[in-house]
């Protein structure tokens, strides 16, 4: 575990800490951090417990709005607002725990519907007094790109530490056991319902923190921005591509795929969509456990 912290967490955090001084597109770096955090948060619930939440963005949006409403209405300092935003995401996850009774695609769809429902509530024009409705949020007062960037790096570091812990602990092993066979997991003495809910809340907490820090950094956004299903889809694709239930799988997924997206997706979107489409189809058909499964096939233990 210490080895993983040293060889994976430290270089990633160091890279994101140093890069802004040599590379000027800070927004792009920030987006890399956000997607890496979201991919790892999704990894917690999908990789380790097998639930694929298409509405994962709901927790991100809840974090963004929790943060913003605290700042707007209570003039809360950013770090307090960030904690409240994370708490809002966790509260939403608690509300949605009954969804864990569903399995497979039923869970995914119900979760997506829940995220869309939250978007509809937030962007309701009748709630303009509270949420600013569809007109969006502006947080000029707390705008601080340097501090919010640093906070995003810290959130990513904490997320990576959590996934490294899961990868190396009995708790992570128990989650994988539940994913493989909940009945057998019960007979191994695991409290299946409780451990599953803990993983679910942790995963929502990560998305909530990412959403809060995203709101802080961009400081002007619309409901559709932070509840965009694209966040869910990207995070899912990155995890699938790299390899779930590992630490480096989702990191690889973000670096490679989001890298391609930024290299060709913005200048020549038609090629990007072709490459992306072919890549995803090929992976699902031939490499369902992601890039790292190539190594695992050779008996190499991928952290």
């Amino acid at each position, binding site marked *: 575990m210490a080895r993983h912290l040293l060889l994976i967490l430290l270089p990633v955090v160091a890279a994101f800490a140093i890069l802004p001084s040599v590379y000027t597109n800070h927004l792009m770096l920030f987006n890399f951090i956000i997607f890496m955090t979201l991919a790892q948060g999704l990894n917690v619930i999908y990789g380790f417990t097998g639930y694929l939440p298409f509405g994962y963005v709901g927790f991100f949006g809840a974090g963004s709005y929790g943060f913003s409403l605290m700042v707007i209405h209570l003039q809360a300092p950013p770090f307090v607002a960030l904690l409240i935003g994370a708490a809002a995401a966790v509260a939403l996850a608690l509300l949605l725990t009954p969804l864990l009774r569903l399995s497979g695609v039923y869970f995914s769809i119900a979760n997506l519907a829940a995220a869309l429902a939250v978007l509809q509530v937030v962007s309701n024009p009748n709630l303009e007094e509270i949420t600013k409705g569809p007109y969006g949020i502006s947080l000029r007062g707390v705008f601080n790109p340097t501090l919010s960037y640093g906070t995003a790096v810290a959130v990513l570091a904490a997320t990576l530490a959590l996934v490294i812990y899961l990868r190396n602990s*009995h708790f992570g*092993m*128990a989650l*994988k*056991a539940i994913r*493989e*066979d909940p*009945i*057998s*997991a*019960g*007979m*191994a*003495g*695991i*409290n*299946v*319902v409780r451990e599953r809910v803990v993983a679910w809340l942790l995963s929502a907490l990560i998305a909530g923190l990412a959403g809060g820090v995203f709101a802080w950094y961009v400081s002007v956004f619309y409901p559709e921005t932070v509840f965009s299903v694209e966040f869910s889809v990207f995070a899912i694709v990155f995890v699938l591509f790299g390899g779930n239930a590992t630490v480096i799988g989702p990191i690889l997924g973000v670096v490679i795929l989001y890298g391609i997206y930024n290299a060709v997706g913005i200048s020549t979107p038609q090629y990007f969509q072709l490459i992306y489409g072919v890549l995803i189809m090929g992976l699902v058909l031939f490499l369902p456990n992601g890039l790292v499964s190539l190594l695992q096939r050779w008996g190499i233990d991928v952290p």
Partner: protein
Amino acid sequence: MFPDAAPLLAVDGLVKRFGGFRALDVLSLRLDAGEILGLVGPNGSGKTTCINVISGLYRPDGGDIHFDGRSIGGWPSHRLVHAGINRTFQVPRPFLTLTVRENVQVALAYGRRGDGVADVDALLLSLDLDAFADRPAKELNSAQQKMLDLARALATRPRLLLIDELAAGLNAAELERVAVKLKDLARSGIALLVVEHLMGFIDQITDRIIVMNAGKEIFEGRLAEAAANPQVVEVFFGAEHAA
């Protein structure tokens, strides 16, 4: 032992319904520590349902289950495991992508009672799984996966072990080893409830059997006596064979 001491497991008037079908229809049984009780009967007679209810997969619809003096009917599986009950499955259910060692480790970490020395390797060795310890469980054959089910159950140090058709599909040599193993477990004080179709195996390991039909007990005693019981013969071979 004291003949009138409370049994380790006491099942009284157990009922389990699936819709209108009574899979268990007022079933009662007793099991003492160190005893091996065989549960036999035709397919669909309720043997596996009985194990599933005692191990917490299903909630009972009526009756009581007492384990070590406590009423445990309807408890979730993990709580039963911590109380000292475990089982194997008719179709083995290992954690397929976890290694053989991890399969046992997770049960040690979450299900083990007491705090004695936990020796994964010794446990795997005793069930001939040591050579595969670091391979994923999905690479094991069916007989080995059954042994892994047993290893996971034993890792939690059960006092009552429910064995659901462990012998089916094993070859003669494997059968002999499993029989010896189960008898050793009973000698160490574990109570065993064994569901099995192989009568030779049942005869070899059990002290006593219960014959079930349609969710009810129709006979209790030694296997040799069961073969002479007209009701048992009728259930297994049809009315024309019954004397």
